[in-house]
């Protein structure tokens, strides 16, 4: 008797046993040849990750949060977003919009978990892995979210960074633009301290073109312009330069840094964006009677929906379809604003319907001051002449390069879309672009570790096996009531407690992502699935897999798929 590849061969009749006794296992029998379908593992892109402004691996963060491994979750955050305590508060979180959990008890409050992780990182001083210095220095102009994000990632790449800020406060709009009830100032302080701990230097009161010139930056290997949009749009009305007519961002800066201020009490805020909302709500807290007028309707308002909702809760009137016409003065003092009613006309290039004034519908609103919050544009004065820019932004090409050699630009002044999340992503991408350029390598967005776009297929609800999930609702977030919050600048929402964050993270489907739950291995009838050595994924032994598809059906989260096997004719 001999064995060949697991087969038993009896050479003579004498070798046969008296009764039938098995002498080998069935492993010689490669049942894999039966199949016409075969399973394979492929992680799909979760819808939240697809929509994340900064490109975070949200699912891995939640997996670690669920297990109480918060420091590791923060490290995953740091791969894409250095300031979770800021974005956890002010990001509009488009990630929550397509959450697959919505159809099964309620979407995951990713925002609240990010808020919790950010606060955890600040209180526990969670720092990213330190880099060894590479001896090169880079100048970052502007300390807004884009500049700070770039400073963070560049210092992780080993550069020594100096950030130049035009004002005396670090943080750009984070400090001077966003009111404290949305983003308390200590949060910004903590994040700036984190950068200082990484070795980032800050120089305040250095304005481009005034007391900071390109010639002074010769010692730096590269310069990154992240100056944001500092100039306000104009109404184009006579008497616009009146003392009682304010620019929205200037007013917010005064309020946010605590400068003395005389305004109101009756204030009309013109605009429908976040600046208008922030101005009106801040003025309400200072005892004014603000009123917002907007030339389109609620549906077209560019402000975050949650912010508009909270504004209405605080009983600030928002009047739609009104366009300002004329400022009415009496004895050098503003007493009213004359307006026209509008109706929506044809769509303009932004896809929104254009407001058309209705002639003869004039009326006036009595007021003591007017705040213009019509949007911001690039403040071009002070920029070097060798730099190409238009009315809106600095012109950059692929790899964040400007027309001036050695100068890069990112954020709202270049390609930003006006949110903190976008600015952070651009800061990270620009830092890699600078790094690539200094190494004389081509820049490609794929250098950035993110799950965004790795797999174009988005995980869908119908791919999940709901038997493995309980229908459950998200936690109710603790928030101040409207009547409690309008008397001060106290933060409105408090974060989740530790156990709440863990429970909420556990509710996440982890769409399309293998979490090593072991269902496939347990149920495989052919013992063809086993964990790989690294314990991060499974492998399938196609020699024995019969292609029944049980693993695909029993995968709770759609990470296993079936494909046809070419069996010939």
């Amino acid at each position, binding site marked *: 008797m001999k064995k060949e590849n697991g087969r*038993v061969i009896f050479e003579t009749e004498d070798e046969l*046993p008296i009764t*039938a*006794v*098995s*002498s*080998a*296992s*069935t*492993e*010689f*029998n*490669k*049942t894999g040849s*039966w*199949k016409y379908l075969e399973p394979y593992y492929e992680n799909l892109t979760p819808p939240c990750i697809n929509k994340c402004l900064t490109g975070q691996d949200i699912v*891995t963060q939640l*997996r670690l949060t669920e*297990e109480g*491994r918060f420091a*590791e979750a923060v490290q*995953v955050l*740091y*791969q894409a977003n250095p300031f979770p305590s800021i974005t956890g508060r002010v990001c509009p979180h488009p990630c929550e919009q397509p959450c697959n959990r919505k159809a099964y008890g309620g979407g995951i409050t990713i925002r609240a978990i990010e808020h919790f992780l950010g606060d955890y990182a600040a209180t526990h001083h969670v720092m*990213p*892995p330190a*880099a060894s210095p590479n001896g090169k220095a880079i100048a970052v102009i502007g300390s807004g979210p884009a500049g700070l994000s770039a400073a963070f*990632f560049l210092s*992780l*790449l080993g550069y020594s960074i100096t950030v130049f800020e035009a004002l005396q406060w670090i943080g750009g709009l984070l400090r001077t633009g966003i009111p404290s009830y949305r983003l308390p100032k200590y949060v910004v302080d903590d994040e700036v301290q984190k950068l200082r701990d990484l070795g980032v230097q800050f120089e305040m009161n250095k304005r481009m073109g005034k007391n900071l010139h390109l010639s002074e930056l010769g010692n730096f290997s590269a310069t990154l312009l992240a100056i944001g949009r500092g100039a306000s749009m104009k109404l184009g009305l006579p008497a616009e330069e009146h003392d009682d007519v304010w620019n929205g961002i200037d007013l917010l800066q005064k309020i946010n840094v605590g400068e003395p201020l005389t305004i109101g009490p009756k204030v009309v805020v013109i605009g429908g964006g976040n600046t208008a909302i922030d101005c009106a709500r801040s003025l309400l807290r200072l005892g004014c009677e603000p009123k917002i007028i907007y030339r389109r309707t609620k549906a077209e308002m560019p402000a975050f929906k949650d912010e508009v909702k909270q504004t209405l809760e605080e009983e600030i009137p928002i009047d739609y379809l009104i366009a300002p016409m004329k400022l009415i003065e009496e004895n050098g003092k503003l007493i009213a604003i004359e307006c026209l009613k509008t109706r929506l006309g044809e769509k303009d290039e932004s896809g929104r319907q254009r407001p058309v004034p209705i002639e003869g519908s004039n009326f006036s609103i009595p007021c003591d001051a007017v705040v213009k919050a019509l949007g911001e544009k690039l403040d071009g004065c002070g920029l070097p002449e060798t730099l190409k820019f238009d009315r809106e932004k600095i012109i950059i090409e692929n790899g964040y390069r400007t027309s001036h050699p050695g100068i890069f630009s990112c954020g709202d002044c270049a390609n930003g879309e006006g949110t903190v999340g976008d600015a952070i992503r651009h800061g990270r991408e620009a830092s*890699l672009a600078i790094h690539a350029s200094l*190494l004389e*390598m081509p820049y490609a967005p794929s*250098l*950035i*570790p993110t799950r965004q776009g790795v797999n174009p297929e988005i995980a869908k609800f119908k791919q999940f096996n709901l*038997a493995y999930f309980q229908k459950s609702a998200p936690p109710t977030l603790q928030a101040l009531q409207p009547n409690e919050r309008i008397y001060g600048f106290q933060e409105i929402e408090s974060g989740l407690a530790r156990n709440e964050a863990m429970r909420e993270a556990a509710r996440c489907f982890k769409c399309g992502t293998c979490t*090593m739950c*072991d269902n496939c*291995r*347990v*149920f*495989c*009838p*052919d*013992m*063809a699935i086993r*964990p790989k050595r*690294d*314990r991060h994924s499974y492998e399938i*032994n196609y020699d*024995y897999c*019969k*292609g*029944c*598809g*049980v693993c*695909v*059906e*029993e995968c709770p989260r759609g990470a296993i798929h079936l494909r046809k096997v070419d069996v010939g004719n």
Partner: protein
Amino acid sequence: MALTTFTPKPNFDLLKVEDVSSPGHLACPGCGIMPAYRTALQVLGKNTIIVAPACCFAVVDGPFPYSAAGVPFMHCAFETAAASAAGVRAALEVLGRDDTNVVAWAGDGGTFDIGLQALSASAERNEDMIYVCYDNEAYMNTGIQRSSATPRMAWTTTTPQQAPKIEYKKDLGGIMAAHRIPYFATASLAHPEDMMAKFRKAKELRGFRMIHYFCPCPTGWKTDARYMVKLDRLAVQTKVFPLYEVFGGRRYVLNVASEGLPVSEYLKIQGRFSHLQPEDIKLIQQEVNDNYEELLAKVDHSNRQRSNDT
């Protein structure tokens, strides 16, 4: 040259169990026999002897001279699973070995019909063995003939749609409880931790222990192979196959409360029920509800009995 990437370390230790059984066996794709056998052997260990009559499992194990079982596997005549296992136990006693698990592993035909006499006799003598009935509700490997475990109105080759089965499925749990055996339990593939716990209990007890396993058969039930686990899960959720234990033939324990999904959820994914009319489904629902009520009454009764005792 990307940024430092951070890979979280796995903090779990996957079940460190070694499989006794081996792949390459001859079960149809999506068959429920091997997953249950594999789970059972993970608990029972290598010191086990399997006795199987003519049934799917005898084929699945492999042709001479090969075996997928990984432990001694004795084939016996169709009606003799319990008697043969009792004989193996007697032989082990003669050899002075009492730590070996003797397991009879038979299908529903060899248990409900042909092997019932030997089963009853062994149970009555309280022979020291674990008897596993994997119930796929027909004689599957001979060509899907009806057995006394086939549910009412199900299609088989001997109960075609024109003349569906009108008899009830035999109440195996009731029969075995009436023998007052130490342990009887039902098991489902959809609840592997529950199944493991039951095999563990069976291993620790002595005397005649029985596990009635509801074994999905995509081939005979005319359904997609991938629904193997789903079928078992739906059977529990729709009360068709409730998970319970009976200790000493009297004390009933319900392990998983059925969610009470309509029975049509379970029936509609199986081709063997595709001919059913709404009124047929109503009748099946009624039967399932009645059986479940009866089981709950028994559970209630034993709970009251227990509180009286203490």
